[in-house]
């Protein structure tokens, strides 16, 4: 492994509470319920509304704030691109590095494994399944469940909503199956 700068991760005891504060701040600023996946619905409503009732609503009124927030998340990424050098290492646990290398991932630097998430990888069966298939599952699943990590796991659980607990158990069931069954299959075949 080339000697790359190791990134200093924001510790959980700062990161978690700061993330959690978005719930009360959005409520106090404008009675908005913290959630991000609604953006996918609002974009569909704006671009391809006619086909389904699900997309027939005033997206500017109900989704305008959410689209602005989502655009901000993108801008946050842009801002950080200027600050984090490419190729830096995360301070991952040695166990995780060993497991991922055993799966055949050679480069464990950067935020995402470049050998799996690149335009070249998209042209492989494995890359297409992971990026296009994974994206479809994220979009379909969050719309069906009515929320994602922010809406259900953080907002919903913090408000003691039982449906959100069911959804979060689903998130983890799917995530564990994907991690322990699907990914080893995909990474092992080398297609």
């Amino acid at each position: 492994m080339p000697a790359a700068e190791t990134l200093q991760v924001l510790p959980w005891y700062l990161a978690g509470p700061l993330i959690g504060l978005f719930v009360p701040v959005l409520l106090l600023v404008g009675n908005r319920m913290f959630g991000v996946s609604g953006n996918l619905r609002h974009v569909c409503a704006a671009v391809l509304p006619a086909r389904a009732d699900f997309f027939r609503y005033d997206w500017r009124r109900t989704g305008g704030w959410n689209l602005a927030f989502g655009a901000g998340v993108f801008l946050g990424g842009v801002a950080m691109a200027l600050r984090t050098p490419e190729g830096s290492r995360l301070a991952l646990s040695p166990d995780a590095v060993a497991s991922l290398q055993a799966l055949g991932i050679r480069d464990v630097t950067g935020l995402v494994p470049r050998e799996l998430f690149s335009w070249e990888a998209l042209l492989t069966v494995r890359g297409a399944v992971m990026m296009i298939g994974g994206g479809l599952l994220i979009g379909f699943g969050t719309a069906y469940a009515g929320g994602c990590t922010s809406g259900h796991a953080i907002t919903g659980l913090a408000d003691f909503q039982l449906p959100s607990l069911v959804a979060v158990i689903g998130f983890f069931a799917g995530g564990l199956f994907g991690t322990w069954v699907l990914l080893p299959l995909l990474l092992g075949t080398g297609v």
Partner: protein
Amino acid sequence: MTASLTESRPADHSPMSAPDSKPARSSAAGLLVYLGLGTLFGSLLIKAEVVSWFRIQEMFRFQSPHMYLTIVSAIATAAISLQVIRWRGLRTLQGEPIVLPPKVMGSGTRYWAGGTLFGLGWALVGACPAPLFALFGRGFSVFGVVIGSALVGTWLYGVLRPRLTH
């Protein structure tokens, strides 16, 4: 005493309703506030590395407490904040009462089935929706394809919704 802020009002999460249209359309200045908050949130997600495929793998493999502690402390902070809002009867800056629409359980199918499908995608991509936007901004341009696929997935749900169990 239940801690929920919920009231009986049309819910975003009831299967047949459009998103809850609470306040009026945001003004341009209001949108800028949300844009700024989103920018902070996106930066925070990257700085905490929760946008990282590696960190998500570490979490689902139970090889580091980082993600769990981050998520649990986020939930705890949000829960305590909601209690404070409720106990003090805090209102929005515009003076409206604060309301969180309840999620309707129904048969529960949409939550476990939709949740599981999303979880599969989360493990493959290593990112949920907000991290997708942050990574795209961070310069991982191929994540634009993932976002495009997610839009198609949501659109498919909208089209198929009348035939799905909720």
